[in-house]
């Protein structure tokens, strides 16, 4: 939501912010205002704008979340190697410092924007918006947003992505979904990475990891991948292809998709805003100024 133009006031909540609405003057002359909107309304508004922009360009945006070192960049490298001939990719990288990850992606001929967050432990919709301005989305199939390595904070922020991928690497242990329920609950797919280490780190039980995920009432697929060994990527690549096709189909029907991160409880209790169409227009770059 922006602070200046009043675009946070919707037909649905207007009555609350008018003095004759659901506002009660208390006896001591104070005004009580019922709001019932997300604490992150401002971020969510920007995220909706990002999503609308991506949808206009027909781009599927995928947010990758995991602990640091779980293999997000390596999975992206392997994905580019496997599908780069069929699909056009771009990547937004989030880290506290360094261009290292963006350089790894660029080395494969794929455009990448590095966001360095300083001390911020997550990406937010405003940072992603800035990064989108530095990218050409022309003809792009999939935009990957590699979030800051962190199993806590990234889960709370909608970026405008369509899907959330949470990675869990074998060395981390199979009980991570039980320890960090918020981020695993937000996943649209769970990818177990570094599965080539399973014979060595045999105290990791993939079935147990899945049971911990199911205990979060999650029904999403659990895929196994080993990017380094170039084996076992089939499930992941098939999921990506299917998601990209499904997204194109949805857009053709005039629909879009929000990831599982959208809170159910909040949806039941909050005032809902009209999705997407908020009439906020501005000029985006084209290929020539990218």
């Amino acid at each position: 939501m922006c602070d200046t133009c009043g675009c946070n006031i919707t037909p649905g909540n207007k009555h609350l912010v008018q003095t004759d609405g659901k506002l009660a003057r208390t006896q001591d002359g104070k005004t009580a205002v019922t709001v019932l909107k997300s604490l992150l309304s401002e971020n969510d508004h920007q995220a909706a704008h990002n999503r609308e922009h991506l949808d206009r360009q027909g781009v599927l945006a995928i947010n990758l979340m995991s602990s640091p070192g779980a293999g997000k960049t390596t999975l992206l490298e392997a994905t580019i190697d496997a599908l780069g001939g069929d699909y056009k990719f771009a990547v937004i990288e989030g880290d506290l410092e360094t261009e290292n990850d963006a350089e790894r992606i660029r080395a494969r001929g794929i455009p990448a924007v590095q966001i360095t967050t300083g001390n911020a432990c997550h990406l937010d919709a405003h940072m992603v918006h800035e990064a989108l301005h530095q990218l050409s989305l022309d003809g792009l199939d999939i935009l990957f947003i590699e979030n800051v390595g962190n199993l806590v904070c990234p889960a709370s922020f909608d970026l405008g992505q369509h899907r959330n991928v949470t990675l869990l690497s074998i060395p981390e242990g199979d009980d991570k979904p039980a320890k960090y329920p918020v981020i695993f609950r937000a996943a649209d797919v769970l990818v177990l990475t570094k599965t080539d280490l399973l014979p060595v780190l045999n105290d990791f039980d993939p079935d147990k990891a899945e049971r911990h995920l199911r205990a979060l009432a999650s029904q999403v697929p659990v895929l196994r991948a080993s990017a380094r060994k170039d084996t076992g990527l089939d499930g992941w690549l098939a999921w990506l292809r299917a998601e990209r096709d499904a997204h194109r189909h949805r857009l053709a029907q005039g629909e879009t998709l929000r990831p599982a991160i959208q809170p159910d409880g909040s949806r039941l209790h909050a005032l809902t805003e009209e999705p997407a169409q908020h009439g906020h227009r501005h000029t985006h770059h084209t290929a020539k100024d990218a």
Partner: protein
Amino acid sequence: MHELSVCQGMLRQVAAIASEHQASGVESITVRVGPLSGIEPELLAQAFPLASAGTVAEKAALIVESLPVRVRCRSCGAESESTPNRLLCGQCGDYQTQLLSGDEMLLASMELTT
């Protein structure tokens, strides 16, 4: 540790609403937070004085209402209280449940001095 960002976002909403009402100050801010929102009420309360300094809500009391985790079973229909990492039906144990409460992060209400 992202509670400071959340707090700053909340305060921008608070400022917008206060200005809409031409309020001179904010007396109190009530938020509702569930354990599955990823927001820790204590950290939010610690971030609040830092984030609110110099804003219209500088002197406001932050009231954090913690909500329980509750689920409804899609199989047997029962509603039960749950824990953040075990969202199974309390009656039949099925994992196909819908969250009724527990992931909220809502700015519920404010009291303004006008």
